[in-house]
């Protein structure tokens, strides 16, 4: 192949079979969203880099940047939630709350691995704001319910939702009087360096008893509802997570795992955080949570990755003879035959 015809790394063309699956997923999910009263929006592909930098400093390095004619920097959106929240707080600021929005949007990220997919199509919802009966807690339940309802409609059964909470670690560290070390501990946990964390605590003269307590919690707090016993009885986080676990009878048992070690980005998520795993491939299907801090009113949402869903959905492009034979085929190339064929072919 001529090198000028090569695609840049990490992006691809979509072929009819890809798009067939994509349309299937999109139409089924949008039906579910619409059934729950969500309206579709689509923010532009380009956003101002400055607003991105303020909202998601963690995504700055991964964002594709474009220089505008006046020298200002534009960002190719690395995430769909951010522009939807912007839309909610500007042009839709006066609309009744909660605002229920859904989207299908491509997002772009540069990864350190060159062969990583850099263009991804996300589909998701945001529920923003509250009223008398739709409290932030109801909104969270609504959000998880729509997520599970969507997977049900796509007939994806082999999945787990891994729940955690942005404040869990603070609560645990406070109980162990380790708040002073919170930043370092959070960093070690979010980068998965548990063994390094315990060595760090030892070298900072933390008592072996406290280290063992923390170790016991961190290593054992992944699993079913039992792990919630590591939180105090009056913990509001515990109540929040128990409310979500109570959805089991509606959408099927054993769909939830709790994991205290799953630390979300604290700059963005303020409360509930979850990700969805395909239990066969162990791949992430999507993620979501609550981000009041960023939206300045209560907001919860999720985003699923169309590519990962496509690998989990068992459908493929039907080999319809119809589409192949139903093409313009005049008897000869004389004008009358061509016109006859076109008349026959016309869609009505």
């Amino acid at each position: 192949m001529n090198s000028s015809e090569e695609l840049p790394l990490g992006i691809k063309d979509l072929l009819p079979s890809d798009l067939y699956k994509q349309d299937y997923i999109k139409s089924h999910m949008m039906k579910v969203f619409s059934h729950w009263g969500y309206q579709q929006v689509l923010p532009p592909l380009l956003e101002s880099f400055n607003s991105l930098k303020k909202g998601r400093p963690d995504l700055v390095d991964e964002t594709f940047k474009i220089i505008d004619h006046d020298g200002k920097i534009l960002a190719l959106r690395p995430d769909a939630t951010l522009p939807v929240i912007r839309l909610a707080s500007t042009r839709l600021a006066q609309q009744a709350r909660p605002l229920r929005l859904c989207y299908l949007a491509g997002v772009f990220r540069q990864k350190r691995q060159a062969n990583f997919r850099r263009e991804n199509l996300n589909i998701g919802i945001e529920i923003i704001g509250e009223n008398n009966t739709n409290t932030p807690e109801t909104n969270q339940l609504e959000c998880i319910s729509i997520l599970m309802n969507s997977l049900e409609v796509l007939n994806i059964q082999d999945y787990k939702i891994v729940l955690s909470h942005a404040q869990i670690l603070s609560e645990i560290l406070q109980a162990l009087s380790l708040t002073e070390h919170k930043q370092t501990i959070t960093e070690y946990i979010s980068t998965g360096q548990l063994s390094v964390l315990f060595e760090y605590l030892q070298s900072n003269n933390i008592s072996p008893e406290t280290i063992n307590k923390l170790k016991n919690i961190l290593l054992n707090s992944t699993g079913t509802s039992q792990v919630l016993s590591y939180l105090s009885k009056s913990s509001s986080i515990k109540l929040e997570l128990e409310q979500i676990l109570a959805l089991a009878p509606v959408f099927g048992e054993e769909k939830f795992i709790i994991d205290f070690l799953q630390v979300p980005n604290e700059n963005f998520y303020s409360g509930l955080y979850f990700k969805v795993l395909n239990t066969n491939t162990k791949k992430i299907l999507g993620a979501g949570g609550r981000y009041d801090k960023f939206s300045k009113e209560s907001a919860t949402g999720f985003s699923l990755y169309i590519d990962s869903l496509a690998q989990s959905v068992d459908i493929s492009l039907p080999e319809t003879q119809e589409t192949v034979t139903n093409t313009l085929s005049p008897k000869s190339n004389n004008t009358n035959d061509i016109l006859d064929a076109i008349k026959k072919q016309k869609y009505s």
Partner: protein
Amino acid sequence: MLRIAIPKGSLLDDSKEFLKKNNIEFEHADRKLLFKTNKENIEVLIVRPTDVAVYVEKGAVDIGIVGSDILDEYDSDVLRLCNLGFGECSLGVAAPQGSNINSISDVADYSSVASKFTNMTSKYFKKQGIPVDIIGLYGSIEIAPLTGLSDIIVDLVGTGKTLRENGLDLIETISVHTAHLISNKNSWQLHHDLIRELIPAS
């Protein structure tokens, strides 16, 4: 099904011993790489040390045993569950005997440094504020100064015998490394009970 990757080479025997202590045993045949074990739901894979972290990060394998040198060098996105204590070695800077380079402060700007661990080497010299040219090699680093390929080297040092035999002296230890038990982050959530059992109480 739980898949465990253990590294070929110096950590292999201790890794097998670790599994044995956890009642996981398999017949080691030389050319085979994937082994069934006495436990129906556990398989063992033997691969190069650098590849253990890759298999675990990508989720092809659930957990693995690997030196922390590899984890630090490749910045692997895995869960480091615990320090297993065995296989201790250190990453150090070594210079030719009689070269007048007796400590890090003797290293001249733009010296050439040969190493397998180019990322950690680069990080270390940046921290020291010394600009260096790093030459990435895959093996036999000790020979680089002898042949004039580099001024100094950064390599793993066990007893220091190999260094001395090649006319080199250790001038600085950068970091100390041991074998670690690691897990794929998603596997930890999906197979928590099976993996948790393997973490030694301390």
